[in-house]
């Protein structure tokens, strides 16, 4: 009898525990419709007739790996394609980097490029119908660059505005260089002359949210967050992994989008994404790995390149032996057949993207042969190593390569490099470790080859070359030392991109930078979407925005 009572108690306990936990795990409630309700209060957009071949249902199913919180100040993953269509920056770029009016109609700048005046579209309004005013940008940006905004990097865009540094440092609440001249006019005063500052105003980081909707330091937008763009959130729940964006019916713009709904699906396993694609469960997909290559072989037209400016390479620490001798660096470069190496390491998927210059083909001022000495030349490599202060492979200090991540592509490239150095130059004392500096423990300071990357979402070649120079002139990074190059770089900052000499000077600076042989090239990376042929007018811009979203539609299929 006693044991029956015990059994009863134990079973009852289990049942109660199960019920409690099941109740906690009830299916996710539908998204709060208050956001949509707010939007409904706005004036309905005039209808836009669908093209003749359009499908009845205008829904895009997008599959990707990285979907992160939605906040213009922090977004960085592959959830960003529509963020500029929810919280509009003042301008929007097309594929060729041209600025289009977006939240703003136009802008002016004073003669010395220190004061920019931006005119917000007079009809611009939030999804609740309230007008978008200049002060809202000031309020949000001041929060977004402050220490309060967790994991935010808007400061990269606005750090040059007068008074921004004080806010970044937590010493002021408001960026003093921002002034609302009136509701629709924003004046931005910079610390110093910058002819390309307006580029930041087309970056998704400078879209802004109404501060009343920012409810936490780790703010993430949801269905209740008001938008000023043509799309709004229906549900964006990172925990439940549900992501749906729908049209903002109250959008103030003249052109209504065709797409009614975008359903994003998180897929951390790229094999599964591939199965979904083959089964017709995805209209747009994004793969990071080489798994997508069979699709390219079948139908290359499915691929839409994101015109990122990205290089992947192995930086050589010129302040550490044996990289302190330029002849060693030259020898290491010339001893590798880069076409074969990258072809093998990337399984043929980057044959057309072997890095031969810093500027990528997608950028202004790109010159394909700006590094004339680039290429495989074993005899030259041997001579260069012999001419170095180390005299040959025997006296060469150990080469320690940090692969910077554990991607098989990086590791394979490093292994192929080491193999070719051994075959061509007789260098055998090479150690490769996956990961960053932390993989080396106490030996971290001895690492002399570090895989790195260089990428930017603002297509400003002068700023990029300058950025590289500044980064690699730091002693603990690569430690480049070149006074003349420093002067050339300083001049680049003041050049007007529209001037005739701009590209000439950018190319000259790039060539001089390349002549330091401070890196071993890998690839200009290839970020791209795979898009079903029935998704029409699809395109993306440099910061991975579906820049043609207003014109994208799904055709009958």
């Amino acid at each position, binding site marked *: 009898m006693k*044991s029956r009572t*015990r*059994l009863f*108690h*134990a079973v009852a306990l289990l049942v109660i525990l*199960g019920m409690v*936990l*099941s109740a*906690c*795990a*009830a*299916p*996710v409630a539908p998204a709060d419709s208050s956001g949509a309700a707010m939007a409904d209060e706005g004036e309905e957009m005039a209808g836009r007739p669908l093209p003749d071949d359009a499908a009845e249902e205008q829904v895009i199913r997008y599959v990707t790996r*990285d979907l*992160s*919180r939605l906040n213009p100040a*922090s977004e*960085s*993953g*592959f959830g960003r394609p529509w963020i500029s269509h929810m919280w509009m920056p003042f301008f929007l770029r097309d594929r060729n980097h041209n600025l289009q009016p977006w939240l703003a109609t136009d802008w002016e700048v004073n003669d010395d490029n220190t004061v920019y005046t931006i005119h917000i579209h007079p009809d611009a309004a939030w999804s609740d119908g309230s007008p978008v005013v200049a002060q809202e940008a000031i309020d949000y940006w001041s929060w977004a660059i402050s*220490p309060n905004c*967790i*994991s935010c*990097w808007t400061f*990269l865009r606005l750090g040059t505005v007068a008074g921004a540094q004080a806010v970044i440092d937590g010493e002021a609440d408001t960026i003093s260089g921002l002034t609302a001249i009136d509701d629709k006019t924003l004046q931005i005063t910079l610390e110093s002359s910058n002819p390309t500052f307006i580029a930041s105003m087309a970056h998704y980081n400078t879209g802004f949210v109404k501060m009343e909707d920012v409810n936490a330091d*780790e703010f*993430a937008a949801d269905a209740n967050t008001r938008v000023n763009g043509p799309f709004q959130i229906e549900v964006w729940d*990172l*925990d*439940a*992994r*549900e992501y749906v964006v729908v049209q903002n019916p109250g959008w103030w713009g003249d052109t209504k989008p065709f797409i009614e709904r975008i359903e994003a*699906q998180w*897929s*951390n*396993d790229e*094999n*599964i994404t591939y*199965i979904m694609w*083959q*089964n017709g*469960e995805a209209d747009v997909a994004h793969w990071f790995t080489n798994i997508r290559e069979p699709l390219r072989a079948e139908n290359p037209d499915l691929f839409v390149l994101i015109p*990122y400016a*990205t290089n*992947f390479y192995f930086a050589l620490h010129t302040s550490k032996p044996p990289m302190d001798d330029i002849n060693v660096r030259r020898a290491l470069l010339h001893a590798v057949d880069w076409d074969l190496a990258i072809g093998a390491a990337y399984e043929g998927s980057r044959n057309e993207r072997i890095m031969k210059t810093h500027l990528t083909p997608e950028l202004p001022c790109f010159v394909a042969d700006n590094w004339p000495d680039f290429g495989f030349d074993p005899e030259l490599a041997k001579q260069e190593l012999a001419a170095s202060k180390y005299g040959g492979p025997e006296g060469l200090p150990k080469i320690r390569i940090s692969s910077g*991540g554990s991607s098989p592509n990086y590791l394979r490239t490093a292994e192929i490099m080491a193999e070719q150095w051994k075959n061509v130059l007789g260098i055998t004392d090479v150690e490769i470790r996956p990961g*960053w500096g*932390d993989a080396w423990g106490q030996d971290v300071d001895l690492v002399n080859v570090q895989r790195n*990357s*260089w*990428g*930017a*979402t603002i297509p400003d070649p002068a700023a990029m070359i300058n*950025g*590289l120079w*500044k*980064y690699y002139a730091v002693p603990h990074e690569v430690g480049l030392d070149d006074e003349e190059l420093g002067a050339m770089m300083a001049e680049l900052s003041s050049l007007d991109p529209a001037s005739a000499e701009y590209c000439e000077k950018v190319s000259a600076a790039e060539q001089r930078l390349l002549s330091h042989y401070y890196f071993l090239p890998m690839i200009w*990376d290839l*970020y791209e979407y795979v898009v079903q042929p029935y998704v029409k007018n699809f395109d993306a811009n440099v910061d*991975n925005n579906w820049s043609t979203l207003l014109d994208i539609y799904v055709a009958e299929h």
Partner: protein
Amino acid sequence: MYKYTLKRLAIAIPTFFAVLIITFTLTVLSPFDPVAMMMAQFEGTLDTLARDDVIEKIREQYGLNDSYGVQFTRWIGRLMQGDLGISINGQRNVLRMIVKTFPISFQLGLAGAVVTTLLGIPLGCLAALKQNTWIDYTIVGGTLGFRTVPVFVLAPLLLMLFVLVLDIMNVPRGWDGLFQTKVILPVCILALGPLPVVVRQTRAAVLEVFTMDYVRTAKMKGLEMWRIIIRHILRNALIPVVTTLGFVAEGLIVGSIFLDSIFAIPGFGGVAESAFRGFDYPVIMGVTMVSAVMIILTNLLVDLIYPFLDPRIKFE
């Protein structure tokens, strides 16, 4: 029983805190930088040359530049207020992440354990009763065969079969509750993992009990075989199986990492996986806490069940 339970829980408290302190110390003192690891995933899509500036700013925000002592005191202080902190990688409240995901994994793991039990015990009995016949070999070999194929291989293969070859379903994804057809495949795959353990454990236990005198007596009395198995063999054979099942269930609940990833299930395994991959220590601490509690409770539950199976065992 209540006294015994309370005593066991009281003993568990220092164990629990010891686990937390060790985990916190190892995580904070490790050479890995969670912010750098977070930034690495944005490589090529963010202004990577500004990475160091961004990393420094975020490290400051999370207090990662503080000394171990300061970080530990802050963490304990928050823990006492029920605040597990903010995920570095996901910038979300850790407690909310766990509260949202754990019940899903709990249901999934429990369902997997039930399927394992319902399949494993009868199959183990059958294998024992048909020892050294083709049935025995098929059961043991078959279940072991499935076990040797990793989940991240087995699941895509099964999906290719069901979705692309047989065309009978779409890729099951997400979570709409336990009683949905999309849960069948993940639960079955989940159950396959520990199935050979339960089968072999049951088989061995049944074989051992089968030679006991009381079983021979029952046979001689002319009892039907099913009655002998249920009343005399299984009851005695189940003690080691229950121990195994307890840990199987615990493992299934907190360890469905690959399944969460493959089937996009918003479960606890996915939270754990991304936390460990990104060295996201606020989440690692949360995951460790839950896992520690699960292990402590599972141990306790298993011990509480023993006396019902074997009256000779008393709560002491």
